[in-house]
């Protein structure tokens, strides 16, 4: 297997990034020359912004990240509990699942303003928005995973009259682990989107990268906006990286030979 530190793995991405930076520099410089300073900041200004006040960006990033993670925790746990319930009670699944599938394809961030109205400008509505964003993908994916338990193994346990709880614990839940990680890979980056949108909507809140973006943009300061976007991108990549690393470890044991 080729490792990430092998140049063949990271070199193309680095080159692409450099090309992007150069193009950005050229375009931004050209725009500044023509006096159009409100279209794109210079990369150097953005970097200076980041280096100039790393503390602000770190604390804002932490605000947004912790909101996102709390939302994942809340939405994920509730979705997992409901998924188990639905996999055990087919009637309930037939009642609720169509609704869940519809909501899964709805951009539920649209609930954000309503949740802000209902819960004010504190952290609660932001966590809730994130939880709502996370909920349906986790529910739908996990339910698929719980139902994907291998039928022959299921048959063996049934022939022993294993209880439902035993089948769940010893077969269904472990078999659903790959689905759980699939869900996490989708949902963790999505949770950052949820948190940022919630911060957009709850204007007047004091911190968070989303807040930083809206307040800076309102003052025509583009450098902080782009700096915040870069921090968000790094955050998303880092989250994904953590999930993939944990997934690799766990699935090596629970679903070996899958890749």
């Amino acid at each position, binding site marked *: 297997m080729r490792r990430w530190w092998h140049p063949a793995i990271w070199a193309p991405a680095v080159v692409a990034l450099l090309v992007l930076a150069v193009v950005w520099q050229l375009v931004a410089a050209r725009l500044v020359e023509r006096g159009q300073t409100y279209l794109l900041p210079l990369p150097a200004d953005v970097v200076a912004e980041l280096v100039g006040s790393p503390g602000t960006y770190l604390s804002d990033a932490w605000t947004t990240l912790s909101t996102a993670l709390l939302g994942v925790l809340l939405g994920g746990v509730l979705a997992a509990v409901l998924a188990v319930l639905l996999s055990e009670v087919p009637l309930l699944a037939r009642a609720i699942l169509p609704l869940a599938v519809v909501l899964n394809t709805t951009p539920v961030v649209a609930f954000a303003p309503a949740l802000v109205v209902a819960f004010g400008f504190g952290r609660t509505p932001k966590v809730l928005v994130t939880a709502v964003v996370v909920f349906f993908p986790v529910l739908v994916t996990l339910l698929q995973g719980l139902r994907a338990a*291998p039928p*022959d*193994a299921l*048959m*063996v*346990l*049934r*022939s*022993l*009259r*294993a*209880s439902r709880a*035993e089948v769940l614990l*010893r*077969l269904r839940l*472990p078999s659903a682990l790959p689905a759980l990680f699939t869900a996490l890979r989708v949902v963790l980056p999505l949770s950052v989107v949820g948190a940022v949108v919630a911060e957009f909507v709850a204007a007047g809140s004091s911190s968070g990268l989303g807040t930083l973006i809206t307040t800076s943009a309102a003052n025509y300061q583009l450098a902080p906006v782009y700096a915040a976007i870069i921090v968000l991108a790094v955050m998303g990549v880092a989250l994904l990286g953590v999930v993939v690393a944990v997934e690799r470890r766990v699935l090596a*044991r*629970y*679903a*070996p*030979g899958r890749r």
Partner: protein
Amino acid sequence: MITVRGLRRSYPGAAGRGAVGGRVDGRVDGRFDAIAGLDLHVPEGSFTSLIGPSGCGKSTLLRAVAGLEDPDDGEVLVCGRPPGVAAADKEIGLVPQTPALLPWLTVRSNVELPARVNRSADRRRQRAGGVAQRGDVVEVLREVGLGDALDRYPHELSGGMQQRVALARAVAMRPRVLLLDEPFSAVDEITREALRRQLLALWEHVRTTVIFVTHSVREAVVLSDTVVVMAGPPGRVVDVVDVGLPRPRAGADLGGAAMHAVEDRLRRELAAAWAGEHG
């Protein structure tokens, strides 16, 4: 020991599905009989094979005996009790077509799995006097030649080894009935022969009642006391053939006129059953 009387099992099927091959199914309710009017008796401690064309209801019958399917008509008795009751006492061992091992458990833990679920069955058995001891996991694994693989994981084993683990898992709890659904169909011929010998060796000292589903006439004859030929759907028994070859057969070099006579008879009957469905 195992008695099946007038068993019928139907599935909600597409209309006209029973009419495949020009044979018209008499049913009007859109259901499809996988098994109808099936009678079977398997004596205690005997080894019986089920053989018949694909789709004739062998797996369905096996599931019914394991208490995994409720009959629409007729009855199934295992040790004189409904299969569900026997299953609740963990008296039925099942070896499905795929090994169905849990990838996150070692070989040993996979074989211990039956002991870890439905523990009230074991408590009942103990209270009733603790007669038949549950088998020893390590010992059974040794007997199927996996004494060195106890701590390995299923994906580190060959298909034949995995199937032996599945066999050990079913046998380790000393079930009174052992049901095997084409357990050796996914391995090569040489491995398959080795697996047969191991199954025979194991059975010759465990002596449970066995129903073994297979597509191989040779396999049925080599292993069984009795071969049941089925046709269908709807599944039914068309003949019961006593093999009558001497035992023990595990080490013996089988062959000879007697065996070929039985094989020839079975082949003719299978051909007839097959032609009945497709001709």
